[in-house]
């Protein structure tokens, strides 16, 4: 330690000097600039989303009525009719896809993060997941068509569910892995140190700690496939009538929208708009419900 009085020393930073004042002005200007740019970017991102929503409401809301939710499509030439079977069909196909895709996706992610670190199999799984993520959805549809539809010799809700499930898996697997990687190692050690077996630590401690992020990943995957048309064209096929059977062709909102949108009739165009609005609202509602449900058990002060 120096014994010299402080005032005689050259201070490392003199905030009163001219250069520091300019520096300070420069810094706050920079601060405003960067904050402004981030806000601008956020607006640019959100604006199209809001525009799409408003346009959908503008185009579709007028065609929404009780019949839309309770009736099946009317034959060509007749007015009215609804998409009740498509709404239910979409729900069934998405439920099937989630039941298959979410458990497999999460389990694969747990393997990658907790058990397979550094092994050749884990690297292969990770690589496959990344490739699968980039496979165009129409290719997925054709693959499932030849793998399931051709074998069964008919289109089916199940084939649609499988196609969507396979599309969900890579997203869920990779998010699960990433989220588990953010769980501090100390927490795993705490559990292992208490004599908790490794599998139980992975499931009840690591997975539970990472669950908010994993739920987000599942929701992203769900929302992504909920609007998919291409993989359903060759699998679920679509249906103008009620069907609850998993081994039969089933209606789905994106398919119905597609059929109506490319038709030459104005009435069908209006129904397609209404269907699009319902589809987007359904996705928003289900994502919100899951969020509320997932947040219910969160405690005060948890991180």
């Amino acid at each position, binding site marked *: 330690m120096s014994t010299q009085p402080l005032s005689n020393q050259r201070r490392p930073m003199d905030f009163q000097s001219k250069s520091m004042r300019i520096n300070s002005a420069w810094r706050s200007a920079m601060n405003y600039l960067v904050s402004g740019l981030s806000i601008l970017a956020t607006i640019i991102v959100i604006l199209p989303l809001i525009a799409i929503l408003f346009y959908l409401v503008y185009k579709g809301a007028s065609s929404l009525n009780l019949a839309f939710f309770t009736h099946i499509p009317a034959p060509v030439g007749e007015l009215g009719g609804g998409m009740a079977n498509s709404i239910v069909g979409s729900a069934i196909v998405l439920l099937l896809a989630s039941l298959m895709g979410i458990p497999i996706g999460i389990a694969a992610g747990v393997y990658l993060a907790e058990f397979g*670190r*550094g092994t050749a199999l884990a690297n292969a799984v990770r690589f496959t997941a990344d490739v699968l993520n980039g496979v165009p959805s129409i290719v997925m549809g054709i693959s499932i068509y030849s793998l399931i539809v051709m074998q069964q010799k008919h289109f089916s809700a199940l084939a649609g569910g499988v196609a969507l499930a396979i599309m969900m898996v890579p997203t869920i697997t990779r998010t699960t892995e990433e989220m588990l990687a953010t769980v*501090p190692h*100390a*927490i795993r*050690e*705490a*559990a*292992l*140190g*208490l*004599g*908790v*077996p490794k599998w*139980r*630590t992975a499931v*009840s*401690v690591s997975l*539970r*700690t990472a*669950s908010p992020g994993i739920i987000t990943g599942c929701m992203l995957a769900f929302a992504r496939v909920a609007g998919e048309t291409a993989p359903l064209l060759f699998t679920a096929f679509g249906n103008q009538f009620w069907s609850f059977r998993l081994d039969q062709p089933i209606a789905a909102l994106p398919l119905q929208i597609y059929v109506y949108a490319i038709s030459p009739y104005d009435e069908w165009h209006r129904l397609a708009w209404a269907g699009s609005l319902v589809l987007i609202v359904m996705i928003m509602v289900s994502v919100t419900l899951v969020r509320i449900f997932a947040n219910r058990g969160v*405690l*005060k*002060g*948890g*991180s």
Partner: protein
Amino acid sequence: MGVGILVENLNAWYGSTHTLQDINLHIPANHATALIGPSGCGKSTFVRCLNRMHETNPVARATGVVKMGEIDIYKDASPVEIRRRLGMVFQRPNPFPTMSIYDNVISGLKLNGFRNRQILDETVERSLKQAALWEEVKDDLKKKSGASLSGGQQQRMCIARALAVDPEVLLMDEPASALDPVSTSKIEDLIFQLKSQYTIVIVTHNMQQAARVAENTGFFLNGKMVEFDSTHKIFTNPRDKRTEDYITGRFG
């Protein structure tokens, strides 16, 4: 009641690094034993070998004999069973962030499938009282997350969590090094009380702490145990020159 631990020719490696070399040591039951030494000398590796946490690292391995009472922990039992009998408290408080205080304390039992509500309630109260935390948290047991407590409270909760599974030995790896002086002295008081029921092994960088809480002290240097004796002897009249240099602050 605690049991003694006998260590014979313990060697440990991380990859190709020979972190522990030929450790021989007898840790007496119902006493606190302190392990001191400079950073990286192998103290933490040593305690992690005692409850087989060492082998959770894929590149780590260990050879030698560690006996807890009559049990050879590397031969006669599974690592999971050993870790239930030798509780561990880590350097940094590591509560489970998603669990309430109650669930944190009881996690060792619950995660092993134990479900009896009445016994769980009693265990939470007993362990938190043992860890001198009961009065501070008894009203928020199920409301607050374990991570919402202060650092010192979290560490005492982690001690309660280790005690809840009813171990015979308590391994503490620098339990107070991340805490302020007040919390540290609470932890030390705790160690003082707990050693009547448990065998305690405490790794510490703080030599005053070793002198305050432990009957016996071992000095580690570069993966070897240089000296092991009563704490009084180590600090007043060490046999080895290196021990003397370390405790007088000439290196380390």
